[in-house]
């Protein structure tokens, strides 16, 4: 479970996240939506303990990101969007294995987990090739496997389907459904509204660091009496604060 409680993050005089409050339950997939610069990535970075909140706090399974960062890190799986951040001179297996070992996994369990993930993500054939020669989609799959290798209770995914082709995106969606079934807490940021509707139980919409909406897509449609998701999104970020 993740609880975001009145969190503000400032970089000098710039307020990136302003008094944000929401929660995600185990077994729930929450979509984090917003335009570029809305504060999504900063929020995820604070959840991942990479950045510290200026005020307020976030708890992950009851552990504070400010005071118990090591306990939080053991419970999260993190995938940053855009640049997937893999070691190009290492093979896919070495990349995944390195992170598995840093999370304290035993060699045998790690090896089995890598095989299982590579089957699920259909990346067995290039598991022992160096990442530097991979396409964007192949890299994205390796990065997803790396973020899930230690079977985290909380999964933070920033633009996870960027670069994936249609079939790979479909494989990924099935994986998310399985993880939800397994009771994982999943935060998912995306620009693709259709994907968010398919995958997420609820959405949080941010605009200029502030919360604009939290609830299900059905509630969103009902509130604004619109069916088109893109129109809905524009209406929310263009209108006044609703929560």
């Amino acid at each position, binding site marked *: 479970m993740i609880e975001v409680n009145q969190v503000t993050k400032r970089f000098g005089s710039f307020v990136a996240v302003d008094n944000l409050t929401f929660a995600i339950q185990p077994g729930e997939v929450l979509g984090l939506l917003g335009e570029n610069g809305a504060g999504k990535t900063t929020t995820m970075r604070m959840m991942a303990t990479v950045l510290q909140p200026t005020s307020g706090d976030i708890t992950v399974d009851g552990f504070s990101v400010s005071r118990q960062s090591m306990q939080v*890190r053991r419970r999260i799986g993190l995938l940053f969007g855009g640049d997937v*951040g893999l*070691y190009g001179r290492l093979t896919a297996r070495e990349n995944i294995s390195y992170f598995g070992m840093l999370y304290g996994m035993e060699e045998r369990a790690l090896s089995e987990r890598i095989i299982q993930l590579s089957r699920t993500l259909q990346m067995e054939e290039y598991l022992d090739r160096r990442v530097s020669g991979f396409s964007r989609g192949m890299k994205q799959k390796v990065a997803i496997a790396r973020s899930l290798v230690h079977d985290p209770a909380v999964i933070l995914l920033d633009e996870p389907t960027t670069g994936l082709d249609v079939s790979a995106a479909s494989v990924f969606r099935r994986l998310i459904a399985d993880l939800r079934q397994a009771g994982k807490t999943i935060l998912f940021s995306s620009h693709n509204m259709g994907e968010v509707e398919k995958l997420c139980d609820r959405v949080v919409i941010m605009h200029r660091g502030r919360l604009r909406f939290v609830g299900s897509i059905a509630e969103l449609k009902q509130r604004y009496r619109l069916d088109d998701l893109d129109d809905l999104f524009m209406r929310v970020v263009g209108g006044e604060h609703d929560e």
Partner: protein
Amino acid sequence: MNRRQIWLVFRKEFIDLLRDRKTWIGAFVIPLVVIPLLFLLIGSSMSSVEEEARSDIPLVVLGKADQPLVEQLLAQPGTRLVQTDEPLALLEQAEVRAVLELPDDVEQKLSRGETIKLTLWYDPSNQKSAYARDVVGQAIDRYEQQVVAERLNAVGLSTRAIQPIETSVKSVASDERLTGSMLASIIPLMLVISLASGGIPAATDLVAGEKERGTLEALIATPVAPKNMLTAKLFAVMLMSGISALASLISLSSVLAFAPFGMDQVEYSLGFLNPVTIALLLVMLLLLAALFAGVELTISTMAKSFKEAQTYMTPVVFGAMVPAYMMLPLNPADVPLAYYLLPVFNGMAIFKEVFYGTVDALHALLAIASSLVYVVAAIAVAARFFQRENLLVK
């Protein structure tokens, strides 16, 4: 400190660096291949110039050529006469090596006890001409000695009458000491520069590079404490620095052992090294490597990009070169005590003492203690920067 985490990060960094061509070129290929090649090239080029200067010495004689002095000159190996109307123009054009002007009646004047006047032109900007000046000068000296001997003989004196003092110059330096003094001038310089430059590609890649590629953020989000990450990265940079310094040491020692420049009469010997001096050499290498690694990782952490880090790293090498060059001409006995307390200077001073075989325990203690202070300070600054979120996240 979690030793397993440090080992995991260090092992990954090392594998990653092993597969990086630019790191290997900087740390290994340049010291092991380029330095010996450069020395051999300079050596062979110097030898070929010298060989050419010896084998052919074209000279112009202004005056009668069939005189004993000229005959003595032409008896020198490689000398030959050139006829020309423009001797000085040919000398400037390097067509001839020297021009000697002498009177036509050298023998008559000398037999009358007079002093003859010779003029020797040469081109000091041309090495071959300078060599020809020496050859001609030596031939004239020999001829002069013959004339002096004849004149002394005529008045019933021997040449010893004008040599009241006979000096015998003897060296007290052993072959080990001579080898050490030769090594002490160039090896400490190369060691310090290799230590400073050898770790730069690794330090740049391991923080600024990782930041740029987004891998550092993923690493920070793992349950590895920043101090463990930094320790592992510090060891990796130190290892690359050490490998580079060792490669320089091996390559330079081999070059000097097989082609001892200017040491033809000396047997190459490393007898000045013993277990204590080797241990001292290694300790100082380790401390200097740690100091440079700390500074370089701090710079890499502060830099916003890989390119920016590369730019900031350049002064590190210059910073190492200044004390290295300042200490180059100094003999260990002339090194001021304060230098044993200054960073990099202290390492250079100890390297010199080791190669001269004159290690002073107090100097060694001062250098080690002061280096430890600098290393701790450099690592503390690096650790402080390494925990600043605005410097680690793009």
